[in-house]
């Protein structure tokens, strides 16, 4: 197993977004998190590259991502007032896409800020 070392990695657990962390990864999991705090360490070490969950679920049953995307598009377009909510633990690029999607479906877009 080759060891990947990522210098100046960015932690997105809390709002501090520390960007000076050194990560050691063996391809499946992160084994070392230099300079990260206890919260950051558990954030990095808890997420692995393993396939622990089904790709997608429709009504609780495993499904393909393609089917799930089509089902999602149907539900969102059929709704009179759909809501797009969250946006906290995703990248700005994903947030941008989400705003565009909200415009297309004529909905409300909101984040954790409003809580």
């Amino acid at each position, binding site marked *: 197993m080759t060891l990947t070392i990522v210098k100046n990695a960015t932690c997105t657990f809390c709002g501090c977004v520390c960007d000076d962390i050194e990560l050691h990864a063996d391809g499946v999991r992160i084994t070392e998190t230099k300079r990260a705090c206890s919260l950051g360490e558990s954030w990095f070490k808890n997420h692995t590259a393993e396939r622990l969950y089904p790709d997608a679920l429709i009504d609780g049953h495993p499904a393909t991502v393609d089917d799930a995307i089509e089902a999602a598009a149907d539900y969102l377009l059929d709704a009179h007032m759909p809501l797009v909510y969250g946006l906290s633990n995703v990248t700005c690029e994903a947030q941008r896409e989400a705003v565009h999607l909200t415009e297309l479906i004529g909905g*409300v877009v909101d984040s954790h800020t409003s809580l």
Partner: protein
Amino acid sequence: MIYWGGNPAECHPRHFTKYSLTQKGKFTPNGRKDRTMVLVDIRETPSGKAADVFLQVRPGKDFEVITALRALVKNQTIRPEAIADTGLTLEQLNDLVKMMKEARFGVIFFGMGLSMTRGKHMNSAAILMLAAEMNAFTKFVAMPMRGHGNVTGADVVLRYTTGYPFGVNLCRGYPRFNPGEFSTVDLLVRGDIDACLVLGADPGATMPQPAIDHLAKVPTIVLDPKVTHTSRLARVHITTAVTGVSAGGTAYRMDEIPLPLRPALKSPYPTDEDVVRRIKEAVKRRPAWLPMLKETVIV
């Protein structure tokens, strides 16, 4: 430095050392020794150890304290009985105002203990007004202590795409902003919405029960790296890569500095960005709900 209603020692462990309290700066060559830290909270938390002054406010009385401070800053007289039930004395408040005015550069970091308790938006508005008014005397800023990774990014992206930071309604084809009307909890509790796409959040674990009940009633779609509480009551769940661990992109720090993410792992799942884009493409292939919206304006 004033921390109000927050516990950075436990919730933002590196805030003191990497950003605020102990770092040496051009005008603070001695780091911690050049700074005074005040902690305002309803109980003494582990952050209290780092503070020079700890002020214990009675729960739910933050607004009253801030209003009294704003009056004292402008040299108004306050009767001691007017602040009797805040848990603080006039002497303590006068000392704080003196410290604030003597500072060369003051900052108020406010946490959820202020913005999520009795008064909510009004508390945040009051503390921002206090910081604004302090600028008549010295340089002063206020900054919310953001919880989740890129929640600041959500504010920034919504601001530059729609003009408003959160709770934006695009039902009429143009953005409308009205917290209390278009904010998630209110929409859910009133039962206004009839479908929901949740990404980068787990409202099933954090929201009030009536809101969760409504989420279970309507078709809910969840994008998350894990099968969450919300996924269990959703019609559709799509597993995605973990932001910052196996998905790259940009995230904003709480002081609105954008930072690139450097993922260390390769996920077997698609990223949130990818999935949202594919849902968008699938929506585009269907007839538009409003013909004039075919060509979009915002992004």
